[in-house]
């Protein structure tokens, strides 16, 4: 199925000679490439649900110049883990606003059910030719949600070599994000307090992200193309999650224990707000390949990630596009595994990690399960159908499972698996 749209050019990583070939062939094309999509994402146990409509529009402006635009609206509802773990006793927490409470029953993973947000994100890329073999792409991104504002710029230089069999890419991006959480910024490592009384140090905080990428795309032969990228990123500023807490437990019973924290605040609950480092250096090597069989196409990618938080991860992704004339089926499998951050702790033990005055003895700590050791497995299937020459309708369904490593975790405190379904419908056409 050969559609005319060349929307893949939006991604830096797809700035291969293939898109160059396509854009040259379609330089006189004055149609807009339109891609519309709708995502439904739903987690088990009434956790997060997301509805995410999106539209993309791209257009050749002539002589290799191109503009790409994107609008995404993301509506989230449901409950999200607050970082504390399940216990054999009921646990009461104060909501982020500091005005009320919610309860996790014995054996339940504590979930904050006040979670609800709508995010609007826009993006624009402008590709400008320098000469026949090189071009630059300039990008702007902005997104806003109830408690978060993100503004970003990016620039990428793309150079074709070797009779356009090789493409080199160098890109730089800068983001400035502002967090204005409900209830304000908690004082890190201070106790969560009863409603009406808060430990706050301000209403907002910021972080900056600088990312750099070097990439090479290479045509191997008539049926195979590969890409290799090295990425380096720096995050600085407020990298803590203001809604996440860590349980302080009694060393003998393992039950939540506020006996020392009450020396900090008389109404302290047995939890402290997490604290992450204020900087992070991220690295990744990313490889992907596309290989054409007789009719079908195989896509494979692998990423190795490492950072100075002690996290490493491996991600494998495989798609097999089975052609059926005007339609296709595409099974998909993704497997991800990561190690825990150095400062990840399942909980804090009174006496060992928190002294008698209620002071946390660690410089940084988080029990956010996303920073723990775990694996994600995703299985999916997509069906695409060409409607006429220039449009396509597609439906994709996927199942995702996250299994957390509970070695050395006391019975009854385990982090349960997270299951989620991913459904999205897409329709692309020329306009």
């Amino acid at each position: 199925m050969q559609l005319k749209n060349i929307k893949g050019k939006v991604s830096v990583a797809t700035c291969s000679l293939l898109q160059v070939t396509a854009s040259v062939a379609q330089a006189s094309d004055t149609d807009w490439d339109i891609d519309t999509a709708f995502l439904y994402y739903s987690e088990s146990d009434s956790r997060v649900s997301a509805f995410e409509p999106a539209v993309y529009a791209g257009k050749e402006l002539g002589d290799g110049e191109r503009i790409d635009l994107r609008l995404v609206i993301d509506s989230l509802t449901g409950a999200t883990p607050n970082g504390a773990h399940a216990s054999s006793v009921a646990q009461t927490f104060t909501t982020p606003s500091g005005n009320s409470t919610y309860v996790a029953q014995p054996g339940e993973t504590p979930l904050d059910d006040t979670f609800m947000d709508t995010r609007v994100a826009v993006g624009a890329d402008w590709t400008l030719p320098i000469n026949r073999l090189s071009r630059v792409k300039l990008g702007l991104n902005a997104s806003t949600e109830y408690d978060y504002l993100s503004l970003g710029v990016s620039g990428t230089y793309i150079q074709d070599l070797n009779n356009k069999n090789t493409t080199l890419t160098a890109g730089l991006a800068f983001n400035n994000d502002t967090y204005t959480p409900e209830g304000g910024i908690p004082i890190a490592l201070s106790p969560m307090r009863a409603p009406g009384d808060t430990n706050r140090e301000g209403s907002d905080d910021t972080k900056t992200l600088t990312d750099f990428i070097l990439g090479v795309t290479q045509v191997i032969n008539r049926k195979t193309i590969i890409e290799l990228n090295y990425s380096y990123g720096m995050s600085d500023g407020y990298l803590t999650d203001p809604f996440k807490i860590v349980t302080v437990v009694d060393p003998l019973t393992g039950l939540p224990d506020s006996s020392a924290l009450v020396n900090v605040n008389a109404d302290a609950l047995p939890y402290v707000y997490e604290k992450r480092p204020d900087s992070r250096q991220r690295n990744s090597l990313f490889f992907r390949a596309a290989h054409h069989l007789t009719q079908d196409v195989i896509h494979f990618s692998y990423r190795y990630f490492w950072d100075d938080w002690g996290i490493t991860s491996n991600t494998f992704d495989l798609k097999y596009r089975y052609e059926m004339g005007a339609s296709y089926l595409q099974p998909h499998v993704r497997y991800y595994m990561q190690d825990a951050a150095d400062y990840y702790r399942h909980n804090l033990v009174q006496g060992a990690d928190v002294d008698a005055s209620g002071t946390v003895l660690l410089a940084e700590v988080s029990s956010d399960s996303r920073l723990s050791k775990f694996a994600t497995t995703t299985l999916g299937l997509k069906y695409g159908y060409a409607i006429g020459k220039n449009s396509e309708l597609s439906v994709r369904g996927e199942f995702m499972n996250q299994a957390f490593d509970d070695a050395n975790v006391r019975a009854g405190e385990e982090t349960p698996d997270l299951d989620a379904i991913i459904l999205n419908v897409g329709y692309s056409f020329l306009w």
Partner: protein
Amino acid sequence: MGVEPWERDLLAKDSMRLAPDYFDNFYDEHIYFSKEATSGGQGVGGGGCGCN
């Protein structure tokens, strides 16, 4: 290694783009960014999110 211009028939197919499914890729990046501690590798730019 490489091909001549007249040998690009298969490589020029949409299905042979390295990221052929724009919104599938976009949604996946967003979902896994919010559920995992590591992300990126495919490119720069794309905007931030309070989800992680």
